[in-house]
């Protein structure tokens, strides 16, 4: 596809953070993030690593646009997101971002298919029939299509996480974010999640940003950003893609 990277030409920047600072004020004022500045390119598989408490999850939630309490600026897709209203950000998330959390947060009362369809129904870009078709496509991608009509609470942890990935992908987001997406999974399921991420980054040019503790998972990506005490200590050099 057009998104395929070529080694000579740098692909466009899809995310840039400039001088991001964040403070926790409870119980005492404490700076969690210090002057975070970095860029992520289209199609890049980026991992953020660091010890617990280094601020990497906090950074991810700021990037996710859900946390708006920070200093500095965030731009995605060439759009400045800092200072936008919650509703605008929700609409932006809906269209451009996909999330995979550590605890495979599916809506327990809904079927697998409904869970995947909901963000697309909210987006309202396609009619319901089309959304359903696309949801099946995404489920096929994570090999969960035969469980489509099951209640999501009936699935195993690994299966739920795969459904969560299908949900994250339903609106073809520019960026997929993962907060320890393999943190709760066994080796086999972790590998599967990794393969899916790798595939969508390569095939669709979608950008992956994950926070992880798993060194193998991080090592398999394109780049590793290492954090310590709220600051980036290594931007990592880009592994040659493929």
């Amino acid at each position, binding site marked *: 596809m057009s998104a395929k990277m070529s080694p000579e030409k740098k692909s466009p920047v899809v995310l840039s953070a400039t001088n991001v600072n964040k403070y926790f004020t409870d119980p005492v004022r404490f700076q969690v993030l210090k002057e975070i500045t970095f860029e992520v390119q289209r199609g890049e598989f980026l991992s953020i690593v660091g010890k617990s408490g280094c601020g990497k*999850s906090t950074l991810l*939630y700021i990037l*996710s646009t*859900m*946390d708006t309490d920070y200093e500095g600026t965030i731009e995605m897709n060439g759009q400045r997101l800092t200072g936008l209203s*919650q*509703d605008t950000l*929700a*609409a*932006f*998330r*809906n*269209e451009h*971002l996909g*999330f995979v*959390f550590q*605890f495979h*947060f*599916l*809506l*327990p*009362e*809904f079927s697998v298919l*409904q869970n995947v369809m*909901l*963000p697309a*129904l*909210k*987006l*309202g870009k396609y009619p319901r029939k089309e959304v359903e078709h696309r949801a099946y496509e995404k489920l096929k991608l994570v090999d969960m299509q035969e469980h489509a009509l099951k209640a999501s609470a009936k699935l195993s942890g690994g299966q739920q996480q795969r459904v969560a990935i299908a*949900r994250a992908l339903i*609106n073809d987001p520019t960026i997929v974010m993962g*907060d320890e997406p393999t943190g709760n999974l066994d080796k086999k399921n972790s590998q599967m999640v990794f393969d899916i991420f790798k595939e969508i980054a390569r095939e669709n040019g979608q950008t992956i940003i994950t926070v992880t503790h798993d060194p193998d998972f991080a090592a398999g990506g394109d780049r590793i950003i290492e954090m310590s005490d709220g600051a980036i200590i290594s931007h990592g050099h880009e592994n040659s893609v493929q």
Partner: protein
Amino acid sequence: MDLKIAYTIAQTHLLSKKKQTLVAMLGVTFGIAMFIVMISFMQGVNQFLEDSALDASPHVRIYKQLTSDRPSLIETLRPDGFNVIHHQKPKQELAKIKNGLVIARHIEAQPQVLGVSPQVSTQVFFNVGSVPIPGTLAGVDVLREEKLYRLSQRMKSGNIEDLRANANGVILGRLLARKLNLKVGDKVNVTSSTGGTALLRVVGVFSFGIQTVDDARGYVNMPKVQELIQKDANYITDLHIKMKDPLQAIDFGKQLARQYDYKVEDWAAANQAILAGEQIRGVMTFVVSFTLLVVAGFGIYNIMNMNVINKMKDIAILKATGFNGRDVVAVFLIQSMIIGLLGAILGVTIGFSLSYLLSVTPFDSGDFLAIDTFPVKFDVGYYLLGVAFGVITTVLAGYFPSKKAAKIDPVAVLRG
């Protein structure tokens, strides 16, 4: 389109917690059912009493009021003087309406008037053996009385035609006849307050279904009363007026009061006790119903609050995947509205059933009122009001938890 998704989510939430939904719904149902029963019953009682009162009493009554509060001669002459007048007696005057029959004819010619019945009313004693029993004799033209009060339909025995045929005839109230132990064909001796006596023959027994009337009144021909109290044929004490529309009576009464120098009393003034009772019952109904609905509202508020707390994770996911605050409010508000609407519809149904059962329950009010079952008024308005109440209560009760849901910070929930 957004509402459709919100509705789908709301529906799924409700169906996944059927028991909780049902409990919340039953709160509304109970409140509204009681509201319907209470308002139907209370309004039924009001309507019944009002109808009875309107049926049995004139819409407007004109009579001469004998009072002692006339200005004294000395005060009229020397208004600035230091006058001490003690225990002034009323002057002797007749309770007569001058030109009563002419006035009656004049009023009857008005288009909004259904009929006028001139009467001569007097206090008498009915003598049963040696016991005098007090009562009222109304000297009437029975055909006019028929036109005003449909007297023939109220006859328990005898016939109003017999009164016209018999100059000495009397039609007695049911309770009075029982007290006097009289039946149609019996004779009774009456003594007027002025000392005149007459021997009357009972030609009929009527019942208006109102104790105060049935227990005291007897109808006789007008000349007979005039003869009993030794007055001329123009002696009229009361004019009873029935309007085509009872609601016009008050204005028409005021107009008559300006026109004639007599006491004019409309049905609302004559039945103040009934109207006051009506107001009290109305207030009571609304207070109790309102309390029930508020209690139901708090029930829903609690359940919705619990619901929001239980669903924090789901709300966080919805927000993370791009649903905004308004969508979340919609999800929970729709839930309350569904609970409210279904609860209200069920409540209205149960309320109707209970009202119906009440309306066929035998009720013995003794001699006070002529009634066999509880009076219940069925009015679509109450049912609509019930549904509206239910929905408004639940929307209010659901609004605050929904607002709370919309304010949930997804980051706090998702980070755990």
